[in-house]
């Protein structure tokens, strides 16, 4: 009896597969095993019954969510904030990667790269505390600077203010993630055949034309794939940031599904309800990914599956 060709292939590259194993185990434990808990959304969760021993509740908790007077406001806020983050947060790392690619001074390039990565490793708790210190109207350096330069007369309440809420959310999100998200584009740019640039130069293309006709097409595929993946988080606006930055003053535009799930699940102990809202988010995310994937395949021949 001969072994299946796939098994043979795996055995031949066993060391590589061994390296993949921790990742596979991680995904299995943290992404697939928890799927078992989805049933909580359809049950009246009881501490004593656990996931599978609690009585069935049908769609009761989905009805509760859609009957909640702020349900549509939550959905609207989530989509709006995510869409803004997607449009700005998706393009800015590409811009940074391209700009860095054009920098010829290696020392400067490395310093900028390192500085732009660093915020990614700082937790939102620290970032928000920093922002509170910097932006406070009571002697915060930002207000002091603006007043010192005569740009404003009275200090601005940047946080807890609907006028500045989106700017603060987007600005902090871009600042924190731009460096990290640009790494993959930097890698993609590094992989572009240098002969293409030489050919472009011979054809008389300047720096801008080289970027337009060589660099951008060179990272197009990776950008499309990342965009498809990013659409999956359209129903998730990032709970840590909004939990910390949203307050009563901005609740009307800053309350999002992620925070609603955390609050109703952990603070109010309504685990089944929270699971139902979470499942709703996930299903919409799945539909979005599948749809965008199809559209991308039709338009550009690039797709995830």
């Amino acid at each position, binding site marked *: 009896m001969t072994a299946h060709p796939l098994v043979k292939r795996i055995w031949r590259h066993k*060391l590589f597969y*061994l*390296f993949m*194993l*921790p990742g596979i*185990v*991680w995904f299995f*434990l*943290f992404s697939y095993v928890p799927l078992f808990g989805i049933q909580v959304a359809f049950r009246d*969760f*009881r*501490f*004593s*019954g656990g996931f599978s021993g609690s009585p069935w509740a049908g769609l009761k908790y989905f009805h*509760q969510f859609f*009957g*909640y*007077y*702020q349900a549509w406001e939550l959905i609207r806020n989530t989509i709006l904030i995510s869409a803004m983050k997607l449009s700005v947060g998706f393009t800015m790392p590409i811009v940074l990667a391209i700009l860095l690619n054009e920098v010829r001074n290696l020392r400067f390039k490395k310093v900028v790269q390192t500085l732009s990565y660093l915020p990614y490793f700082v937790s939102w708790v620290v970032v928000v505390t920093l922002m*509170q210190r910097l932006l*406070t*109207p*009571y*002697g915060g350096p930002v207000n002091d600077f603006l007043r010192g330069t005569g740009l404003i007369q009275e200090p601005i*309440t940047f*946080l*807890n203010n*609907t006028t500045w809420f989106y700017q603060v959310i987007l600005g902090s999100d871009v600042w924190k993630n731009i460096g990290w998200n640009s790494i993959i584009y930097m890698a993609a740019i590094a992989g572009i055949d240098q002969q293409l640039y030489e050919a472009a130069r011979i054809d008389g293309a300047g720096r801008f034309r080289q970027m337009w006709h060589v660099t951008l097409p060179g990272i197009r595929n990776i950008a499309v794939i990342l965009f498809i993946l990013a659409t999956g988080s359209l129903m998730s606006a990032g709970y840590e940031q909004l939990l910390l930055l949203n*307050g*009563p*003053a901005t*609740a*009307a535009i800053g309350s999002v599904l992620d925070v609603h799930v955390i609050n*109703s*699940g*952990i*603070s*109010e*102990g*309504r*685990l089944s*309800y929270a699971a139902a809202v979470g499942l709703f988010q996930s299903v919409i995310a799945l539909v979005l990914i599948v749809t965008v994937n199809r559209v991308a395949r039709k338009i550009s021949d690039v797709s995830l599956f």
Partner: protein
Amino acid sequence: MKTNRAKVSSALLAAALMGSTLVGCTGGGKDGGTSSSGNDGGGSGKEVTLKILHNWNGSSAGDVDLTPITKAIQEKTGVNVKLDYTKGSEVEKVNTIFATQDLPDIYTGPAWGGELDGIIKAAKEDQLVDLSGKLAQYPNLAKGIKKENVPPALYEKAIGAFGDKKYMLYQNQPATDKDALDWLYGFYVRKDIADKIGVDPQKVKTKDDLYAFLKKIKDAGLKENGMPVIPLGGFHNGWAVGIGSTMFYGSNYVDKGDGTLENVFFTKAYEDYTLYYRKLLSEGLLDPEAFTQTDPIANEKIKQGRIAVLAAHYPAILDASKDYVKAHPGSDYIPVGPLERAGAEPNRPADLAIQGNNVTVITKSCKNVDAALKLLDFLASDEGFKLVHYGVEGVHYDMANGKPVAKKEIFDKFAADTTGKQKKNEGFGIGFESLTGPDRTNSLGGDIWMDQDRMKAMENARKILRPNGIKVISAYNAGDVITKAPNWETLKPSMDKMNDVWKEAIFAKSDEAALNVLNALRGQLNKMNYPEAIKYVNDNLKGKEVVKVQMPN
């Protein structure tokens, strides 16, 4: 050879990676060192270790693992206590421990609100040990939960709500009238600031006076450390700037005029209260960061002398301002008012709900229930109470004329330490106080650690704020009764939103927008059958004495 070595190295590296992933997945919540062992309550000399969750945000231990008081408890009961503390929301902690089954042996936490709701749910779902069969052997515990020793609504809702079964122990209710603790909630102003603007804080009586007072502080343009002084501030998440509500309505459930009760959220008085705070906020009289800040940030503002008027209970204000007052003599916070009270005659004593503050339970994970009960019974005894509050006799205090007297060197050591660490290192204030049964502080000898200045300040505040004394509320609270309404489960999430919605409303751009925010939730409450629930409340409270005036405590 070289290739083999590379292969072996690669394999080891991959195995290590996977190993660390799996280790990361193991339940870190269980602390092997704190699980119970033995089964005889320590009587045979076997050491028993019990983990106690002290569910109060901000509570903590000192720098010493085994304090003299913890050691004395261990010697008396044979139980080695490991205290665990909550960092963050107490309600979240209750829900999380039962949902994840990461349970301590003993839990003690707030005897109200969402925390108590979580414990009641846990009792209903067999997560707690039924103590009814064992209480006869532990008289101190049995006494603490006798019907006459528990406020009626709390007894009906929690302690005695399970028929013959008893899941909960009750802590810190005043043993006698003289043990009743008045926290002296109110507005307090820095004395030097009141002097600077030339206003006698005791002349501030009405809501208009308070507004004018805060406005005068703002208009004075005072600065500390180069930063503007904030007229009115509070502590974490807005605690307790909203206590001005007593100027607008008597309690959370008010008489509609026809003898029936209505939740105050539906009334004009609540709208006035909301708009008043909106005005304070929009005119820069109230710190807009007060509702989102943490305690460390609030304390920093107070330590820098940047808050003119603070709203909270007096002990918290005295603690937070200790450093600033030490460095700036004459800057003590003193009471404002007493302010007018809606629905109360001027000569009426202050109506306070003085009751216990902790519910203690033994979870189903406790491997040694007898040891836990022995420990709790000892702590609830007079001997245990004195050990926890006064320390070890001969070491921390001596008895003189039948009363405990603090040793001078220990007293001075504690008084000189503004961080409170010295006290904690001896075992005071690390959580045992929440397990000592009825509060007997005054009956057994008073608070021997309170310094003279603090005592004087508290006494002065009491004289000003309680000119007619206090009246301990014994009537039924409609807020407890509504939780037993048939539709409470579906109504509760919307009722829980009231406080959030109030905060949202005071930040609204206009009065009209603020009222719209309130009305939106009113609509939701009606949709969730609030009328049915309030009818249940009125039916159940017919003929009973009901709380209609209550001050924060």
